[in-house]
């Protein structure tokens, strides 16, 4: 029923990894490598502003990955919210808080390596955890190609039945509103912050 987009003939049954072949695979690996490299740059570059820029690339690569996975709407959201919203917000904050985003803090080399070792260990351990799962390495795809079409998503999002997500949809609106209020309250400079409060002095 669902088209199998990978090429089964070239799969090596012994290996848990599918051998990279075919257009989709090549595209995937290309995207993955780009994503990882930009991510590494994101965390490794010294300048925080550059880091933010690399983050944009990483996010865009992720969006491309989503498109490979037939989740076009999500890819769109990713680009719009992350790239268009969050990262810009980050950049503004950087510009607001430091002189042209120059990272004044240097990290000592041992700490860099310790952090690296920890993260490597973490990834290694976790990947090892999921490896034994039987169905995980098969290239079968269960989803319909339109699983994340706008229509499907909105039908589910506003559905009242058991499988509908109207409740989270309403709830997330509360969340957003609350964030708005909280963020404004926290971030704004109150009037008395400018000049010392007479009560406080007393």
């Amino acid at each position, binding site marked *: 029923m669902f088209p199998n987009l*990978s090429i089964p003939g070239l799969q090596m049954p012994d290996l848990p*990894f*599918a051998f990279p072949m075919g257009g989709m695979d090549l*595209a*995937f*690996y290309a995207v*993955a490598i780009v994503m*990882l490299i930009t*991510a*590494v740059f*994101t*965390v490794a570059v010294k300048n*925080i502003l550059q*880091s*933010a820029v690399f*983050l944009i690339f*990483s996010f865009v690569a*992720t969006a491309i*990955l*989503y498109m*490979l*996975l*037939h989740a076009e709407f*999500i890819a769109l*959201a990713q680009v719009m*919210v*992350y790239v268009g919203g*969050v990262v810009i*917000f*980050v950049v503004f*904050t*950087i510009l607001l*808080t430091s002189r042209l985003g120059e990272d004044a*803090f*240097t*990290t000592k080399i041992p*700490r860099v390596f310790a*952090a690296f070792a*920890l993260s*490597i260990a973490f*990834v290694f351990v*976790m*990947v090892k955890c999921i*490896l034994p799962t039987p169905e*995980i390495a*098969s290239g079968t*795809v*269960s*989803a319909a190609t339109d*699983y*994340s079409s706008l229509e*499907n*998503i909105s039908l589910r999002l506003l559905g009242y039945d058991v*499988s509908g997500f109207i409740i989270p949809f309403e709830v997330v609106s509360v*969340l*957003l509103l609350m*964030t708005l209020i*909280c963020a*404004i309250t926290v*971030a704004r400079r109150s009037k008395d912050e400018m000049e010392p409060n007479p009560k406080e002095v007393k």
Partner: protein
Amino acid sequence: MNLLNCLVLAFLLFGIGVWGLMRRRHLIGMLISIELMLNAANINFISFAYFTAHDATAGALFSIFVIAVTACEMAIALAIIVTMYRRHKSLDADQLRDLHD
């Protein structure tokens, strides 16, 4: 391309996020790393939805919500960091040591 590849990719991204989190001293740098980690989780959702889940749309939906929530968290975090910057005039995580035992 299969599920495992995607999951490993997500973990690698998460790992890079962890690395950044630990090696950065700049608070915003840390936040950026956290963004990477959250992004990794999102990749997971989509991969599962695409490859195995029988209710694939739900996964996609979840990732939309994750994007929204992440944005909210970022907003608050940046607000707090701005406040913090006004007080401390610094964004060095290592200098946040007024509170300790």
